[in-house]
């Protein structure tokens, strides 16, 4: 479950020890947040090697700046912000900051396909979205950032953030429906043959 990022609290004593330069405290922080950080980076960037590099860079930045962390916000929120920014910066550098082209938004009354799709199919569909669209979709739906916050992070308007979420959602629907239809069709053919 990706939700785990925001569920991880860190005892203040660990942060204090890290501030004092205790290597074991740094390792404790790393171990606790390795998976959520990597998962967030992977969802935004779409490839494991880049996600690993973001994990490294973001963690190093957090450790180097731990003196700047104030206890008035949860540690995970501070860390998550750094990870998101690192991933977005990488997308900019790699010229992957183009958004999804206008897609026709069709809303019908049928149950959304992700209700029945398995996690592998959903991951695969997610992976085909443009990086920026996928990132906005993930930051909004999973990490719980608001549209104004996302707009600020990506340097675009609030409308842009909203449209990316809508387009990403529509695209996922398109990608998952044919798979379902194909799957149903295969099952029908098999039963006819029998």
């Amino acid at each position: 479950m990706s939700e785990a990022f925001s569920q991880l609290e860190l005892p203040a004593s660990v942060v204090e020890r890290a501030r004092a330069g205790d290597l074991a405290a740094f390792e404790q922080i790393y171990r606790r947040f390795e998976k959520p950080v990597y998962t967030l980076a992977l969802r935004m960037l779409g490839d494991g090697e880049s996600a690993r590099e973001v994990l490294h860079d973001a963690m190093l930045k957090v450790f180097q700046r731990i003196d700047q962390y104030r206890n008035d916000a949860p540690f995970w929120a501070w860390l998550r912000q750094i990870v998101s920014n690192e991933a977005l910066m990488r997308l900019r550098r790699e010229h992957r900051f183009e958004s999804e082209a206008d897609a026709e938004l069709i809303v019908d009354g049928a149950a959304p396909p992700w209700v029945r799709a398995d996690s592998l199919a959903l991951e695969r569909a997610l992976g085909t979205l443009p990086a920026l669209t996928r990132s906005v979709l993930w930051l909004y739906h999973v990490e719980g950032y608001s549209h104004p916050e996302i707009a600020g992070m990506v340097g675009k308007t609030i409308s842009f953030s909203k449209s990316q979420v809508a387009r990403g959602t529509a695209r996922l629907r398109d990608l998952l429906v044919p798979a379902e239809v194909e799957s149903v069709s295969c099952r029908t053919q098999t039963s006819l043959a029998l």
Partner: protein
Amino acid sequence: MSLPEALRALPQQAPAQSVWPQLAAQLAAQGRARAQPAARLSTRRWRVPAALAAGVLLVAIAWPLRQHKTPGPAVADATVSLPAASISTNAANSANATSKQSTDRSADAATRLASLQDRSQALEHWLRETQRAAAPLSGQDLAAAAEIEDMIALVDGQLGAAPRDSEVRLWQRRVALLEDLTALRYSSYKLAEKTGVALR
């Protein structure tokens, strides 16, 4: 199920290879992190009073070597002849180093380095000699031993790339870690002696 719920239900991923070793090396190289001081490790993890540990260490180094009459008299002599003060704490090592500073700093550093290397070799020798005769470590002690061994490996990595003026500091660190490991193993060694339970 809504899309947010479906996305949140996706499994978390882990990198194929941890980046922690790289981070630890970088933090150490930048002087941002250091391993826990030896005294804190000893008291927190194994609850061995520092004074007792110092005395125990002396026995730990000297006694098994005499008992087993192990080969390598040069190493054994070096081990036994080391002053007690040098194996008690890091602070004692630092104070010792400070007091030895003279006008000829480079000669002093070289002497200090040689002494630390001898000490390191002697401790490793004892650890090797007593490993099979020791009782199995408890889960907690095993984890602590693994952590110390990791730290020693980290120091070894740093020693490979360290400038000459950092060598003494790193060797001091290595010796302190080996002393921690020795204190840890000594308990299981003595336990094996009493109960007859040893590693096979």
